């Protein structure tokens, strides 16, 4: 609060001018630094009245004669200003909460990575308090230890560090209740830990009924964290806890899915030695094409999955047929069923249903003479057209790694010969370019 601004308001100026007129004596209002802000410069003041707010000197009134009306009026203005400030602070706290809820909550709850969520939560905890440091720690049930995931400022723990469940943080975890400790040195739980921290605020990270860790902010200077600030930390910690739990479930699900995919791919390769390594190579070439086409990382991941699984239907084909080098016409017809089998099989896994059309259509031809549905051109899903090119290239090369310039050039020529009839010419073009660009061809010539 500055006196200069207090007495600059028109209504205040009007009153003090009136008082001065009535008092008919030289009187001036000075800032705390001694600058004359209003009225007369009084050389030898008889009366000097201090203007104070909460014990802090803001300035004074100097007069040749005491002007009690002016003194009490300014006391009144200061008191009113203090009240307004308090109301303003209260409102601003709410504003801060609203800002946090609308902004950060959305970011946190839509993030899918645990580290990213922890980083966002710490960042927000830093913004919403005057704390000098903070940490987010997850609790590992098995080892009964905290693991530090994210920190800021004067926090003494480092990211990745493990810590025993002790002190205020340990107590908050066990009691599942947030806490403020404004004088940590007087607190028996942390006194023995020899920390520089003076004040601390800590909230449990909850996910449903489970407590999965803690979020805390601290200060190396003594300070008074308020109940309002604790409320905000608690809200932040709840959202963070839930988001972290979701993210770990999501990561686990993805892991499980990848294991299933691995098992399926291996199952085909055990059954059909010809395809050994084939799925991986087709996935590799498909990704080259996908990248060149500018697909997003998320789409690329789906493409990789579809490519890895494109031949999965061979599980349903008779071993004898798969092993034969030269197939009779009826056998050729049976082996053609693998794309449909694959699609039917994968249709059971909800999480990868989006790639089923690509698996089903990977033997469709651009001119419509493929199988199983005889669709053509851009009616064939993009992923299927990409996989078809990658698949053809790998079979032309007969499964050889592409380390020979001659082989690759011949393979590319054969591929181009199939362009427009079997394969999407645009994708063939992109693939040739990608191979050249990435120096996949010719580097060892």
């Amino acid at each position, binding site marked *: 609060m500055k006196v200069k*601004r207090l007495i600059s308001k028109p209504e205040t100026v009007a009153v003090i001018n009136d008082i001065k007129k009535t008092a008919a004596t030289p009187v001036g209002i000075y800032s705390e630094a001694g600058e004359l802000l209003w009225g007369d410069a009084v050389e030898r003041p008889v009366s000097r009245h201090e203007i104070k707010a909460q014990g802090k000197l803001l300035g004074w009134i100097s007069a040749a004669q005491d002007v009690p009306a002016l003194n009490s009026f300014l006391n009144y203005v200061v008191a009113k200003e203090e009240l307004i400030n308090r109301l*303003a*602070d209260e409102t*601003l706290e709410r*504003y*801060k909460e*609203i*800002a946090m809820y609308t902004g950060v909550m959305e970011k946190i709850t839509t993030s899918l990575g645990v580290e990213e969520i922890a980083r966002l939560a710490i960042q927000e905890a830093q*913004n919403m308090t005057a704390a000098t440091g903070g940490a987010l720690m997850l609790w590992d049930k098995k080892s009964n230890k905290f693991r530090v995931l994210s920190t800021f400022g004067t926090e003494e723990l480092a990211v990745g560090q493990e810590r025993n469940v002790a002190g205020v943080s340990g107590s908050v975890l066990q009691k599942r209740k947030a806490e403020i400790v404004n004088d940590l040195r007087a607190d028996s739980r942390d006194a023995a830990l020899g920390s520089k921290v003076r004040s601390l605020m800590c909230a449990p990270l909850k996910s449903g009924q489970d407590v999965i860790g803690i979020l805390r902010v601290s200060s190396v200077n003594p300070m008074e964290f308020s109940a309002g600030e604790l409320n905000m930390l608690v809200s932040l910690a709840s959202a963070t806890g839930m988001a972290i739990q979701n993210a770990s479930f999501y990561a686990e699900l993805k892991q499980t899915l990848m294991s299933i995919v691995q098992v399926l791919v291996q199952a085909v390769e055990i059954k059909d030695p010809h395809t050994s390594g084939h799925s991986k190579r087709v996935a590799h070439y498909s990704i080259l094409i996908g990248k060149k086409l500018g697909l997003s990382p998320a789409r690329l991941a789906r493409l990789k999955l579809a490519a890895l699984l494109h031949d999965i239907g061979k599980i349903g084909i008779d071993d004898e047929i798969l092993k034969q080098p030269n197939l009779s016409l009826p056998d050729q017809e049976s082996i053609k069923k693998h794309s449909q089998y694959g699609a039917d099989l994968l249709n059971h896994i909800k999480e990868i249903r989006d790639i089923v059309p690509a698996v089903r259509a990977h033997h469709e031809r651009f001119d419509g003479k493929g199988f199983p549905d005889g669709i053509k051109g851009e009616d064939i899903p993009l992923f299927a057209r990409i996989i078809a090119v990658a698949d053809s290239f790998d079979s032309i090369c007969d499964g050889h790694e592409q380390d020979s310039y001659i082989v690759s050039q011949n393979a590319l020529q054969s591929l181009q010969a199939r362009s427009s009839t079997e394969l999407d010419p645009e994708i063939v073009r992109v693939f040739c370019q990608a191979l050249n660009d990435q120096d996949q061809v010719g580097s060892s010539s």
Partner: protein
Amino acid sequence: MAKVLIVDDEPHIRILLERILEAMEDEGLEIFSAGQGNDAWQIIHSQHPELVFLDIVMPDMSGFELCRRIKQELDPAGIHVVLLTARGQESDREKGKQAGADGYITKPFNPSLIVKYTRQVLNLEG
């Protein structure tokens, strides 16, 4: 000394903004406020603030108009103008841009954001 001007016809918004900016008074920030466009125009001429928080809807003159006058009649790059509005309409944002506004903040504003913004524009140390 860095100077900031708050222009809003609603006294409580002025009070809230003043309160937020008061935290920087000790760093050398001087705060002025006005309840209407004409008063604001006079303060701008006499005090030359570097930063103006400007309400869009005011009885005597719209924030867009005042912004346009500041940018056209005074040094366009010298005064940083941030429009304040309770309306989140995209068209307002566009109008503000056309009037030459440098920033746009919706009410209820995020206090930390105002502090950060002010420090940045006025080169104050945090």
